[in-house]
């Protein structure tokens, strides 16, 4: 039996010095990096094949060298802590750097998410890659450019203001000096200057242009390397054998069948963590299926049909008033109408098309982990905590994966790989199965809302109260590593993301109370999925405002505009109204009794100023509803989008398309299914997503403001989708759907309820 006990991991000697010269990634310190040439796109992968741990460059956030190396071959390496999760920021950040440095785009080599090489710019989440990460890089590049000009000016006895820069060189009249030569004279050892003069947007040549994405050709031809393709010499394959339920204890296992499998190497067990290892991938898969395991029973999940009662009755970890305006307790309700409604939003899974994958290798008591984590620096901390190592004994290196849309299973696969590799003493690749990903990646937690609002005789809002029951937010922004949980190693409590954002009301209403009730227990490990909380909160807020507008018999856009004094928000709404050829009328006022057929049509609106402080989106959704079947089809989405300065318009459109289409899927179809023990929606048949025939047309108008700050776009346009669809259903049918997903069964039930109320 090849069972390894907890006390027999690979013996490692931490006293030996790291093998510094095994493969020298960057020769010599300083900003002039010689004999290091990377073709665009292969950069991170080449960097990835080195598992050196010695600090070869600054990774300081406030130093130019943290972000920039001018290479001997004339290329410039940009070290980005933010990573491209398939959203195109590899290209956008390269554009920002090329623009500010005055080098061509082909000279930029972007290295992403390597804890040894890139500054910790925070996880790639929250629509902050350009807004924060890109702007740190812009500032460092501008500082470098001005410094290079000063060196050239000194050399030529001129003033820096007389020097021009172009194609990686400084110019004065007919004299020129390349950046490579200038950096050789004086390395870029300086702080990144927050007051540096940035290039004027009017002079932009690369930023603001629809530069084709750098990664797309290789993705079309099989030349692109995803983490799933990454291989190390001597690497073996592992599969984790998942418990039969969420909180099972491992009682025993029998490997008599699996030892017969050609290529099988061993079983690894650490507490309730169980894995099989083989020399080839299929043998590992076969072994994971044939291993006979006894797990203890556990049935602690609520019944799915009682989920909302469970949420409402859960222990509350804390209550927070997120917004208080006026006093909702002391309003004059004489002649007023009061509306009350409860909204809910189901548990969702990330649904990455490629299940999570990671490769880990131990060397001299230190471990390198390659995976597609959106948060290599945070992951390093978590792995170090789990393994009881210092942070600098762990190196995490990003290699692209399938889109994750938040914190999916990538980090858990990383923890699996480092743990198994520790026992096996070889580089280990862990590939999750589809059932692993659907069943065990952390979930977007359930959200429940109670609303109460009053309007006066003129239809004006008197008061607005919201009570949200949403997942607790521990202080640490991370999600518990599954392997650490199963093996009972040091770990943190799961965090769902900043899901309280956007519950506060974005309109100038006289009396508001928006309160979050933080629910202690959620059925599954909570984490963030694209637009966490903002989507659910906006679903409630924008639907409930629509209810008040309908009660007041006022056009939903006019109603919103009457409470907005933000010119950019107003313009955004006006632009979408024009685009959609909006005809002003109260919702469901034109469709009443008009449609005798089973198919009815409607238009719904929604608007957001993201988190009340940034990106503006206004949308119109066109839907059709089959009253006989309850099936809703979203035909078209009109989107007006203002995220300030646009770096790459086509990349932005691609992102908005994705946000809308993915969220139509989440709104109409998606819901994690479970029994008392476990997730039961373990494949694409039981957790379906939108397919081609159901995809709407997305029409986009970008409002470019080159002189404004660039704000995030990775999430905001998703936030407005569920509410616009639900509002369109009301417009079409006069029925409010207050529960996501809006399934045919719920639609039919709501139609029936309205019909019987009328009767």
């Amino acid at each position, binding site marked *: 039996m090849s069972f390894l006990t907890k006390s027999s991991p690979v013996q490692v000697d931490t006293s030996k010095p790291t093998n510094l010269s095994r493969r020298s990634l960057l020769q010599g310190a300083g900003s002039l990096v010689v004999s290091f040439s990377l073709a665009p796109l292969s950069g991170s992968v080449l960097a990835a094949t080195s598992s050196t741990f010695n600090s070869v460059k600054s990774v300081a956030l406030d130093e130019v060298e943290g972000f920039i190396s001018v290479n001997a071959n004339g290329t410039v390496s940009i070290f980005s802590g933010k990573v491209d*999760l*398939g*959203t*195109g920021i590899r290209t956008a950040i390269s554009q920002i750097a090329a623009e500010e440095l005055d080098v061509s785009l082909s000279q930029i080599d972007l290295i992403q998410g390597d804890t040894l090489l890139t500054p910790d710019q925070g996880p790639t989440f929250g629509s902050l890659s350009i807004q924060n990460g890109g702007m740190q890089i812009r500032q460092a590049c501008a500082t470098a450019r001005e410094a290079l000009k000063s060196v050239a000016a000194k050399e030529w006895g001129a003033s820096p203001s007389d020097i021009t820069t172009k194609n990686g060189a400084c110019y004065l009249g007919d004299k020129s000096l390349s950046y490579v030569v200038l950096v050789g004279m004086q390395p870029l050892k300086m702080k990144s200057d927050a007051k540096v003069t940035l290039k004027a947007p009017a002079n932009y040549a690369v930023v603001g242009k629809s530069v*084709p*994405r750098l*990664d*797309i*050709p*290789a*993705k*079309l*031809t*099989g*030349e*692109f390397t*995803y983490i*799933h*393709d990454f291989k190390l010499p001597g690497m073996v394959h592992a599969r984790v054998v998942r418990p039969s339920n969420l909180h099972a204890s491992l009682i025993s296992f029998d490997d008599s069948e699996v030892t017969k*499998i*050609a*290529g099988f190497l061993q079983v690894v067990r650490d507490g309730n963590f169980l894995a099989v290892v083989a020399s*080839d*991938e*299929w*043998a590992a898969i*076969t072994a994971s299926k044939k291993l006979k395991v006894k797990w203890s029973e556990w049935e602690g999940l609520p019944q799915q049909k009682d989920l909302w009662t469970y949420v409402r009755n859960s222990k509350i970890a804390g209550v927070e008033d997120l917004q208080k305006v006026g006093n909702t307790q002391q309003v004059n309700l004489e002649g007023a109408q009061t509306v009350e409604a409860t909204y809910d939003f189901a548990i969702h899974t990330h*649904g*990455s*098309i*490629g*299940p999570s994958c990671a490769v880990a290798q131990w060397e001299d008591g230190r471990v390198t982990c390659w995976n597609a984590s959106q948060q290599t620096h945070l992951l390093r901390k978590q792995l170090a905590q789990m393994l009881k190592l210092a942070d600098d004994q762990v190196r995490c290196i990003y290699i*692209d*994966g*399938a*889109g994750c*849309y938040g914190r999916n299973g990538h980090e858990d696969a990383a923890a699996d790989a480092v743990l198994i590799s520790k026992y096996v003493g070889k580089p280990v690749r862990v*590939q999750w*199965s*589809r059932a692993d990903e659907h069943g065990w990646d952390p979930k977007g937690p359930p959200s429940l809302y109670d609303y109460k609002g009053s309007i006066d005789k003129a239809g004006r809002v008197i008061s607005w109260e919201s009570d949200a029951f949403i997942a607790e937010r521990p202080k640490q922004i991370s999600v518990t590593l599954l392997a650490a949980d199963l093996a009972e190693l040091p770990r943190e409590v799961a965090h769902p993301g900043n899901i309280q954002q956007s519950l506060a009301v974005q309109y100038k209403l006289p009396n508001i109370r928006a309160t979050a009730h933080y629910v202690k227990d959620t059925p599954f490990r909570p984490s963030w999925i694209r637009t966490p909380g903002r989507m659910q909160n906006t679903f409630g807020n924008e639907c409930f405002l629509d209810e008040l507008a309908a009660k007041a018999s006022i056009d939903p856009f006019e109603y919103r505009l009457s409470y907005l004094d933000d010119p950019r928000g107003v313009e955004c709404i006006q632009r979408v109204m024009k685009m959609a050829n909006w005809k002003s009328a109260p919702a469901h006022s034109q469709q009443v009794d008009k449609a005798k057929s089973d198919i009815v049509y409607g238009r719904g609106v929604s608007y957001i100023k993201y988190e009340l402080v940034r990106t503006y989106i206004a949308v119109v959704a066109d839907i059709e509803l089959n009253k006989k079947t309850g099936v809703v089809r979203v035909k078209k989405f009109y989107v007006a989008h203002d995220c300030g300065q646009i770096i790459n318009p*086509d*990349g932005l459109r*691609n*992102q908005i*398309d*994705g*946000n*809308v*289409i*993915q969220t139509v*899927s989440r709104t109409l179809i998606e819901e994690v299914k479970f029994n008392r023990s476990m997730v039961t929606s373990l*494949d*694409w*048949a039981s957790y379906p*997503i939108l*397919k*081609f*025939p159901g*995809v709407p*047309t997305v029409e986009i108008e970008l409002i470019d403001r080159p002189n404004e700050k660039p704000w995030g776009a990775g999430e905001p346009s998703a936030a407005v989708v569920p509410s616009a669809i639900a509002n369109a259903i009301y417009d079409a049918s006069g029925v409010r759907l207050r529960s996501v997903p809006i399934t045919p069964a719920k639609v039919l039930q709501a139609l029936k309820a309205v019909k019987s109320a009328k009767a």
Partner: protein
Amino acid sequence: MTQSIKLKVNGREVSLPFNDPDMPLLYALRNELDLKGPRFGCGLGQCGSCTVHINGEAVRSCSYPVSSAKGMNVTTLEGLGTSVKPDVLQQAFIDEQAAQCGYCINGMVMQAKALLNKNKKPTEAQIKEALSNNLCRCGTHQRIVRAVQRASGQLV
């Protein structure tokens, strides 16, 4: 590896070794031939990421036993073209910037290629129908449809 079969992959005669005749072809292509086009997505034939052509037909290589591929003519994404010399459909996807994370794109191209081989000018509805069992999570569907239209000379 105890057994092997001979077949043609991307026009080249190759020998694929295996221990288990039921091992899906996908693992042989990826791990023995180091091909990165076909991708593991579900292992259930539900998502399409692993799609290859076998004798001209689009097939889910994640659920096609390697032993059944004996003597077959297999084409993967790599067999269509390279980034330097892409095939017309690959070029259309590049022109339309029809990818985000790109994980599903192998399947989209191989499935659409099989469609275009039979139907030179498919309608939008036919394209959507042909791709209806290929899943994309990033929401790149509109661009993918446009790329197929473009490749078939029906510029949008």
